[in-house]
């Protein structure tokens, strides 16, 4: 019961937070000197009447505060409005979200299933050759800027012809068999996954190693060793359970990054995900689209933190007290 009340309280707290985030972002976007109609204005074949119609349709003729009010009202009703070109924002987002989720979920699954064990290994065999090798690899991984690495891989793809240059599916995708489709997507995913995997793996491995080292150094592990417990038992049962707690918080952040974490890589690889959509929307000051994505970002962050906290309550009895 206590847990439910805690969750309810947390959700209530998010309402003012969302309000502040939305009002700040709305005003920043609207006050920035980007005119969504600027392109049309300088087009000699667009008549004044068309321009006027567009201004009214986008609500640009009203004061900013009224525009915000209209937006907030429809947002609360669950209507995300239309983009500057008249398409439904919810439809646009729904087109892209599955693609981004596909990419980020694969990356998160891979980094966690590889990074955590490697971190543990690094801690157990601290200062051994294996640990040093892992240190060098993860330093490189952390040091390479993602866009640069992505471009290198793209050039690699062009020169060798082994991988397609960006995108998610080939042009003849709809004519392929089911197996062919899976193979096609996999081929397109290799490079972007490699970039994101290398980057997040490094951080995760370092984090896990540091946590594990801390725990292995503590008195109760020394005591367990003195008691004569087997090393496997010490690590799996005592050390790991304590070392994993900070990682749960990290997992919460990963959840927040599910939809927005891969924007840069998506852009370089021309991946049809949410990141590319939002970036293009920001460039054109497509307010409803940008607002929707910012709100999704904030909500995901809040939910991620909440989930992490709840998980911690479940796994760690010390937090419950």
């Amino acid at each position: 019961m206590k847990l439910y009340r805690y969750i309810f309280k947390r959700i209530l707290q998010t309402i003012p937070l969302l309000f502040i985030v939305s009002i700040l972002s709305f005003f920043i976007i609207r006050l920035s000197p980007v005119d969504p109609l600027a392109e049309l204005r300088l087009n000699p074949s667009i008549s004044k009447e068309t321009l006027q119609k567009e201004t009214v349709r986008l609500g640009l003729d009203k004061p900013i505060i009224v525009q915000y009010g209209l937006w907030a009202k429809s947002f609360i009703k669950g209507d995300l409005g239309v983009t500057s070109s008249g398409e439904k924002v919810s439809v646009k987002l729904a087109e892209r979200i599955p693609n981004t989720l596909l990419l980020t979920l694969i990356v998160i699954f891979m980094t966690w299933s590889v990074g955590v064990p490697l971190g543990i290994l690094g801690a157990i065999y601290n200062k051994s050759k294996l640990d040093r090798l892992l240190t060098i690899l993860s330093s490189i991984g952390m040091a390479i800027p993602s866009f640069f690495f992505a471009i290198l891989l793209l050039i690699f793809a062009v020169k060798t012809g082994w991988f397609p240059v960006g995108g998610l599916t080939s042009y003849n995708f709809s004519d392929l068999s089911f197996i062919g489709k899976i193979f096609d997507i996999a081929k397109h995913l290799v490079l972007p996954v490699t970039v994101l995997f290398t980057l997040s793996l490094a951080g995760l491995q370092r984090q896990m190693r540091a946590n594990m080292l801390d725990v292995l150094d503590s008195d109760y592990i020394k005591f367990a060793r003195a008691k004569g417990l087997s090393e496997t038992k010490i690590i799996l049962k005592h050390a790991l359970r304590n070392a994993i707690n900070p990682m749960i918080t990290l997992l919460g952040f990963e959840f927040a990054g599910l939809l927005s974490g891969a924007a840069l890589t998506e852009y370089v690889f021309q991946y049809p995900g949410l990141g590319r959509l939002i970036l293009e929307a920001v460039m054109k000051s497509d307010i409803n689209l940008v607002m929707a994505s910012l709100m999704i970002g904030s909500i995901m962050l809040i939910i991620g933190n909440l989930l992490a906290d709840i998980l911690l309550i479940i796994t760690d009895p010390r937090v419950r007290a």
Partner: protein
Amino acid sequence: MKRIYKVILTIFVFILLLGLCVNKDGSDNSYTIDSAEVVKNPDAVEINKTYPIPRTTTQNGIDYLQSQLPVGKFGGEFISSTIGEGPKTFNPFTSTDATSSAMSDIMYDGLFTSNPMTGEVIPKLAKSIEIKNNTKYIIHLRKGLKWSDGKPITADDVMFTWKDIIFAGLGNTSVRDSMLIDGKLPTIQKLDNYTVKFTISKPFAPFLRMLSAPIAPKHYFSADKNWAENFDRFLATNTNPKEIVTSGAFRLKEYVPAQRVVFERNPNYYVINTENKSLPYFDKLVYLIVGDINNQILKFEANELDEISLKGGDVARYKAKENSSNYVIYNLGADNGTMFLAINLNDRFNIEKGIKKYFVPKKKQKWFNDVNFRRAIDYAIDRKSMVQNIANGMATPLYTAESPNGIYYNKNLKGHERDLNKSKDFLRKSGFYWKQNRLYDKYGNLVEIDLYTNAGNTEREALGVMIKQDLADIGIKVNFKPVEFNSLINKITNSFDWDMVILGLTGTPVEPHNGINVWKSIGPLHIFNQRTSKNVGTILPWEKKIDELFDKGALKLSFNERKKYYDEYQKIVYEQTPIVYLYSPIRIYAIRRKIKNLYPSTLSGLTYNIEELYIDDSKGAK
């Protein structure tokens, strides 16, 4: 210590590798010098080939259009690309951006089209036309034509398109607005199932070409009772492709957001080859949606694209490899774009409440309204260096208001080299003088000018720097101020408080009348002397003359008679130089060698005859 050495060694090797990569890219720069030669090199130009236009032929009561080109092979696909976010709609009547319009043009044919070589109006969906008294246009449609779903194309579709969509003001009203003659719209009348009659109130030359607007399938739209209210939703990007009915060479197969648009052949298309087989040759036409130019280049190099428009330094790099490659490079010459430096001739007083001053300070007005001053600037500008250094040689110097590929381009205006002496002569004539290399007007005012352009556009920013240096050579101090696009547009269309501005506009090579927004003295884009309806002020004599020429040019229907008027307007602009034209970009395309039946055109581009193109990748083919 050893370990530290190892780490340093690793880093060193890594940096070395990086350096190699960078060097490799850097070496490409050495080509840029050659790029101008590519443009001059006539080998790159294969434009002189004349394109035999398709002819009408009647078989079994159906008025086909028969391609006159060599018979090709059916099958395969053509893969092109579009930069940006892809189409926003497939509705040709609501689109306002180039990508959406290009996509809907593939799916919908108009009554007429332009001859890609001469620019004259030729029939497409229409079979023939009779023009009476220059005001009555009787159009005979082709008989037996079908939409992609098998329903016949008739006069009802034409009536529906013009009366219920365009004249009713649905969607983008630009076509409608430009058809208003003295505030009156043309009327349209159905004579029989295959004949319609347009009547206009007085002769209007651009009218015929405006009939190139696409024809909409009536049965598709009117299936919905409230189609007019829901007009924006028709042919939106989320429409099921199977429902879409087309008249063009292709119909939509699938649209995958941010990835591609795939068209498949329209089995009912009315263009046939000389063996009487229905075109197009390609089974599929694919447009990949790519985010930027760099990605486009990579995709072309990875053989994922069949054609690409080349920019700047890439041209020389591609040209160098052309002979050993599987692509051919075509130079289509100057495009419709014009880059220019506009001078603000505004001499009006701001009559709005609270602001009691001139839009442009009085002393500056005297300079800008002095034709000698404007011509001095014109002669001080070094267009050749601009073309070389800023456009990488991929442009042609420009001196006239019409772009050089236009059919109304005045060839007698030859332009001139940069000539500082002549420039200074002009200034002396108007009493300007120099003191310590700085220019002063005859009242002793130091000549100092603000130059604006939109920040972020690297090409225009580079132009600004060059103009600043060029004008410094005649003692004019230029303060170059790139500002946000939005504030720039506000200055030009609203507050009028600017001296000079660098801008670019896109014209139409076949119809100078489309320039009225810019050239009519009360036009909404009369940049160099923008008037508002409340504050017209005096209209300069040569502005009046241009107004008159545009009015007269629209009344005459024959090309030769019209040419006279438009030649004269270009001459006036050349002599008065309210706008100093800088250059027009040149279009260079690379396309795979296996694509045949190409007849590149300066007016229509490379793949305008997409239905006649085919793939021949047999070894003997060159």
